[in-house]
């Protein structure tokens, strides 16, 4: 069966090279049948990659240990769902998933636009072909998932921390996001190569970009929840390089989604948008490089291998190529209008863009810093949490404020008087919220208080927008249906507010206590009384050893909690199986980590009471709802676009 997988990958590589070389030649020389042939090659490339993926999935499901990959990442006792999730648990499988999603997206995007945007898709095909060539080459020549061996009796198993439902969904979600950013990139570069830098590439890729951005954002929240429940250090985001690797392209894509509206409305920022699209794509490849190369230390770097050099070369070459094309087409990307006022919606978007990109580049510098210090000084130095927290506050809080002010400002220009009139209610809401929070003792953290007050302000502005809009149109449903993109965006803004409240609450107002308890002893933390009942050891389980501390909790919540440390057979690492009790009424978590002593009955407990942390997970759901509203196809808009784009084919 491995032979079929190998053959399928070789066919994919051949088709990708054909799409690149012949597609380029066809687009340059303007040959229709050759361009169609290159497009078919890209579609066929998806088909052959699908065959390769099916071979690997079958081998995983059947525990076929003659595949080195299957033996390295699964075992006979591994449940089928986790055996299948091992597809993206290892390096070779992850790269195959990249290629599968890339060719799938490429084939679909090109096939859907083949009639309306024939001239543009002719140039998009070689761009997709180029990216696919790289991944197919790595899979064929450097890291094949189809290497075989004499089958051992059993496999090594899947890293225990990956045996988690979130790990079934989180990586594919991230890949759908990472790889999805290649669609706007391919169309943007294709538009520049063709010399027609009109707005058709934006129209063709708007929903693709939104979908990729949604997957990337939601994927990160799934990962955060995995870290919170599985890694067991008490947090959900550690500014780990691999976590940052997903955040950076998301920030760049967020900036693009805002700035592209200025191009659509005013024909401005064409160069900036090209730069953002290229940046988002390059950062997504860079993210894969970080995760897969092991060049920086990360709890998420599940693989260390020599593919890092190939990835780095690809990032450098594709970045230089993008930059060269942008510089080459600069004369075509000149804006025909200019900013009319510093107090306008487009100006607000511009400020938002500057803050988002500044935050993105600051995070990038933090990620690169260990590599740079290693190269320059010969020693690795890392940027710690204070660095990231400082810049998150410095750029994040003004962004939050802008999120409230921006929607109230009209396009082109607004008078100060009009803005102040609209801001009365949101300011009143935020002042009252701030006063109430101060009275409730929230003044212990200034950034926390500012975040809460700004959040109340943003929610106030969303409320004002909805009320005034509903009055103007007659009903909320009509209002949303008329402009799904805008009101979907407001729902997304509301999710960011929930996220901000959750982050501020769970970090600035968290209670942390470290306790050493003997069986029978009791301690109190933030209204919870914890009685240490004793230790429960895991017995007669061939797959794992370890122990749990049993805590009888009273006070704000009554019940029994188990928190322990588990070691899985065949693996060195010890997993924290933390105790978490969610109180939805108070919107807070009681989170307990146990640390057992070798020669003592005493157990060290780290007890965390995390207010509002669950709003972060709720924010994820609201984020998806808002994104879907903005994504939802609008029949009227579609008809308008068809009539608008049709003449270009003449």
């Amino acid at each position, binding site marked *: 069966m491995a032979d079929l997988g190998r053959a399928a990958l070789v066919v994919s590589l051949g088709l990708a090279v054909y799409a690149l070389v012949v597609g380029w030649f066809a687009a340059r020389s303007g*040959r*229709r049948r050759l361009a169609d042939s290159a497009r078919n090659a890209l579609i066929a490339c998806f088909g052959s990659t699908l065959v390769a993926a099916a071979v690997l999935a079958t081998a995983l499901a059947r525990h076929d240990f003659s595949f080195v990959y299957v033996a390295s990442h699964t075992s006979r006792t591994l449940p089928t769902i986790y055996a299948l999730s091992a597809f993206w648990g290892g390096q070779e499988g992850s790269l195959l998933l990249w290629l599968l999603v890339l060719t799938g997206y490429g084939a679909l995007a090109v096939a859907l636009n083949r009639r309306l945007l024939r001239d543009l898709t002719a140039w998009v095909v070689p761009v997709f072909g180029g990216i696919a060539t790289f991944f197919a080459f790595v899979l064929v020549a450097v890291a094949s998932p189809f290497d075989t061996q004499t089958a051992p009796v059993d496999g090594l198993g899947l890293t225990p921390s990956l045996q988690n439902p979130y790990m079934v969904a989180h990586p594919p979600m991230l890949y759908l996001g990472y790889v999805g950013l290649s669609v706007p990139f391919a169309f943007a570069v294709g538009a520049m190569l063709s010399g027609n830098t009109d707005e058709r590439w934006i129209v063709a890729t708007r929903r693709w970009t939104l979908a990729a951005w949604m997957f990337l954002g939601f994927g990160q929240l799934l990962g955060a929840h995995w870290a919170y429940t599985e890694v067991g250090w008490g947090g959900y985001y550690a500014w780990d390089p691999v976590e940052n690797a997903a955040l950076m392209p998301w920030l760049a894509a967020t900036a693009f989604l805002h700035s592209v509206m200025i191009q*659509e409305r005013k*024909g401005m920022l064409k160069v900036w948008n090209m730069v953002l699209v290229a940046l988002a794509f390059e950062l997504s490849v860079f993210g894969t490089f970080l995760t897969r190369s092991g060049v920086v230390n990360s709890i998420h770097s599940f693989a260390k291998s020599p593919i890092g050099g190939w990835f780095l070369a690809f990032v450098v070459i594709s970045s230089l190529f993008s930059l060269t094309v942008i510089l080459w087409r600069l004369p075509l990307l000149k804006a025909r209008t200019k900013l009319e006022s510093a107090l306008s919606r487009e100006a607000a978007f511009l400020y938002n863009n500057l803050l988002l990109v500044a935050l993105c580049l600051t995070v990038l510098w933090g990620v690169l810093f260990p590599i740079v210090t290693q190269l320059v000084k010969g020693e690795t130095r890392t940027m710690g949490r204070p660095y990231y927290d400082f810049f998150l506050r410095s750029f994040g809080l003004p962004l939050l404020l802008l999120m409230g002010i921006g929607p109230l400002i009209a396009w082109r220009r607004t*008078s100060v008087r009009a803005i102040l009139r609209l801001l009365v209610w949101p300011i009143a809401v935020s002042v009252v919220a701030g006063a109430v929070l101060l009275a409730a003792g929230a003044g212990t953290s200034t950034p926390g208080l500012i975040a809460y007050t700004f959040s109340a302000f943003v929610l106030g502005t969303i409320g004002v927008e909805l009320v005034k809009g509903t009055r*103007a149109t007659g009903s909320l449903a009509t209002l949303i249906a008329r402009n799904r993109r805008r009101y979907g965006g407001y729902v997304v803004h509301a999710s960011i507010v929930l996220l901000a409240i959750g982050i501020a609450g769970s970090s600035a107002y968290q209670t942390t206590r470290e306790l050493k308890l003997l069986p029978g002893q009791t301690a109190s933390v933030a209204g919870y009384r914890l009685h240490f009942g004793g230790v429960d050891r895991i017995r007669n389980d061939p797959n794992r050893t370890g122990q749990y501390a049993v805590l009888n909790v009273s006070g704000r919540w009554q019940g029994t909690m188990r928190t322990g440390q588990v070691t899985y057979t065949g693996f060195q690492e010890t997993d924290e199986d933390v105790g978490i009790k969610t109180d939805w009424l108070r919107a807070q978590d009681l989170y307990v980590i146990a640390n057992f002593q070798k020669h003592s009955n005493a157990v060290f407990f780290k007890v965390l009471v995390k207010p509002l942390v669950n709003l972060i997970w709720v924010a994820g759901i609201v984020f998806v709802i808002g994104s879907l509203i903005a994504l939802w196809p609008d029949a009227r808009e579609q008809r308008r676009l068809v009539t608008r784009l049709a*003449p*270009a084919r003449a």
Partner: protein
Amino acid sequence: MTAVWIVLGAVLAVVAVVLVALPFLREPVTADDRLDTPGEGALRRLELVEQRDRALAALKELEFDHRTGKVGDDDYRALVFPLRQAAAAALKALDEQDG
């Protein structure tokens, strides 16, 4: 068993080749093999359509912002005329283009 997989791999390659060659198999000879690229006129028209749509969308937005109080009466009066002019100019140019 290995031979079966190799044969299947070969079949996959053949299918891929046929798919890639399909445009030429369907049309072995063609009078016009030029890619459907927009000409000067079509590109100019597209530009005008974009200008028209931009101006009309801006007008629609301005009306809505005026009704919801984001734009005051003075600003509305100052902004609406140039936008109407831009929309009218684009429409006129489009009419001229379409003959």
